[in-house]
């Protein structure tokens, strides 16, 4: 034990500047031989969050594509710009729109801050979705990362809800009607959907109570959830011993291999990705303004009224299925499927291999092509040919637009699955991936149709 350092002669001689510095960072004073200026401080700070060493193989850009890191950067950009927006924004129906207009026209850099928030939010959805795909296609959801997949899904839902609750705040026509129809969807949910709708609207219609609910949820509850979930997400990455080890389709599972110090190897890469991303967003925000339409008018629905683009897939389904199916049964099934992906029994697993195996790649391609052909055909058939009500008069729409088409689709997928499984002698991992790719393609096509191929009165039209 060293004696107390009350009258440390060295410390006495130091400049005031140094002494203040040491009082803030005592570690630097105690271990002068280890420190190299402030770098030491930052290094130890970073090492509170990151491992000291990382396996070199996991640094490959083509493993992560930097997507998780980009999501983190975007989350922090959103929090930063969001806090600034809070100074200008007034969450009251009569004033919200005007406060945004004021921000854009009168406040220096107001438009820029709003644009950064807008583009970061939309990009975050894209990035998180791509990150989700990369985790799936590299098989990084297998043990021991099963539960981190669940954390990831929860994060995804939270990010979606954040975007959605933010959508109402500008109180323009776009916002008002998109939120009207999206909350209108809750009415079709069984087990208290109408009640939930009443709660989040704070009444029967979109009004002051809705806005203050959305404001509280968007600016406090959800950011809090995202930060907590992110902490758990990263902790689980650490617990799993870092990222999944990348390898080729025919390589054996590699050992940890060579490790390198996190600083500078990993940190440098992350900083590069972050800086490029931030630069990109700044450029985008300078050249492209976030949309703002006319002030909300409850008496006039624009034609067509569309949901936000990320809900367009569901909106498109709404045109084909009974609402109970489009908004409840199908999303519920999708969520169940996603949650159960890591918990299925896989006789053998190949974490770290892109698309499982060479066979897996071919099958995934077949799944994608099948989805690419089948979905537009389905949409066109339903739009122009199928008219169950005329064929079987008096059939309840729950059957004609719900049970029957869903059963047919699932039967079709089941047939496709069995044929492919037999033909390729495929493993569970490969078939699950193929079915995933099929539904993924279908969903993307539905979304694209909703965004670009629906004109007035939601009729099919060229963009």
């Amino acid at each position, binding site marked *: 034990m060293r004696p107390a350092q009350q009258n440390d002669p060295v410390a006495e001689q130091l400049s005031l500047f140094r002494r203040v510095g040491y009082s803030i960072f005592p570690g630097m004073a105690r271990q002068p031989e280890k420190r190299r200026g402030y770098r030491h401080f930052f290094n130890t700070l970073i090492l509170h969050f990151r491992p000291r060493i990382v396996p070199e193989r996991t640094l490959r850009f083509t493993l992560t594509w930097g997507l998780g890191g980009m999501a983190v950067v975007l989350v922090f950009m959103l929090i930063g710009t969001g806090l600034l927006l809070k100074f200008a924004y007034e969450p009251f129906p009569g004033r919200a729109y005007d406060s945004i207009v004021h921000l854009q026209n009168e406040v220096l850099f107001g438009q820029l801050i709003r644009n950064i928030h807008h583009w970061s939010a939309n990009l975050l959805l894209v990035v998180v979705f791509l990150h989700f795909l990369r985790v799936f296609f590299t098989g990084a959801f297998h043990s021991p990362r099963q539960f981190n997949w669940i954390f990831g899904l929860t994060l995804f839902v939270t990010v979606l809800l954040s975007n959605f609750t933010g959508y109402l705040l500008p109180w323009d026509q776009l916002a008002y009607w998109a939120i*009207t129809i999206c909350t209108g969807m809750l009415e079709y949910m069984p087990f208290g959907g109408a009640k939930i709708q*009443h*709660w989040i609207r704070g009444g029967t219609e979109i009004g002051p*109570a809705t806005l203050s609910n959305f404001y509280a949820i968007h600016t406090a509850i959800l950011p809090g959830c995202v930060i907590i979930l992110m902490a758990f997400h990263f902790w689980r990455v650490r617990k799993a011993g870092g990222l999944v080890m990348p390898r080729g389709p025919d390589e054996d599972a590699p050992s940890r291999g060579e490790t390198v110090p996190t600083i500078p190897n990993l940190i440098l890469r992350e900083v590069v990705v972050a800086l490029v991303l931030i630069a990109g967003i700044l450029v985008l925000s300078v050249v492209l303004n976030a949309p703002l339409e006319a002030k909300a008018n409850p*008496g*006039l*629905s624009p*034609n067509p009224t569309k949901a936000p683009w990320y809900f367009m897939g569901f909106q498109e389904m709404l045109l084909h299925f009974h609402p109970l199916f489009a908004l409840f049964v199908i999303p519920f099934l999708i969520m169940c499927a996603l949650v159960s992906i890591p918990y299925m029994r896989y006789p053998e697993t190949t974490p770290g291999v892109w698309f499982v195996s060479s066979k897996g790649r071919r099958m995934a391609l077949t799944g994608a092509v099948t989805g690419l052909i089948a979905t537009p055909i389905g949409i066109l058939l339903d739009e122009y040919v199928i008219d169950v009500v005329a064929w079987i008069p008096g059939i309840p*729409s729950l059957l004609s637009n719900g049970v029957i088409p869903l059963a047919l689709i699932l039967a079709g997928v089941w047939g496709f699955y069995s044929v492919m499984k037999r033909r390729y002698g495929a493993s569970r991992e490969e078939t699950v991936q193929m079915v995933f790719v099929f539904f993924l393609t279908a969903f993307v096509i539905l979304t694209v149709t909703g965004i670009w191929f629906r004109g007035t*009165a939601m009729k099919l039209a060229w963009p």
Partner: protein
Amino acid sequence: MKKQKTDQPESSRRKFLGKLWLGLGAIALIELVGLILTYLRPGKPRGSDDAGTVVEAGAVEKFLPDSVTAFVRGKFYLCRLEDGGFLALSRKCTHLGCTVPWVDKEKKFACPCHGSAFDIRGEVISPPAPRPLDAYAVSIENNVVKVNTKRPIKRSEFRKEALVYPKKA
């Protein structure tokens, strides 16, 4: 300091007290959640007493048979059918709640959002709307049509009894 004995089997009293704490904690948690939920429950909207929910639409003669008149403040349409019966329809589409305009040329309500259409009686001509437009109670007193906009009436189909006729003079 004396080391605490940890390898001794737990006494039943300690176990009991532990469980008791757990139970009390659970009760407190339930109470807290209940409290928060009650707090968050949407209350009565401000300034929504009964006054102002009954809208005086005007004299019977003002409305021609087979016509639809929009009441923007009351958020409803007053329809007079060909046989002279009155019907007040909510302007909220029963699909997802867009505001439906009346298209006089085509004699129908056409929802701009997802293409639902309703006839003058509020019945669905084309889906996806699942049920007719909601109605409001209409009454005719001293030849003046009044509409009570307090509560929309959900209907699964149009019924003739829903129409209100002026008393024959």
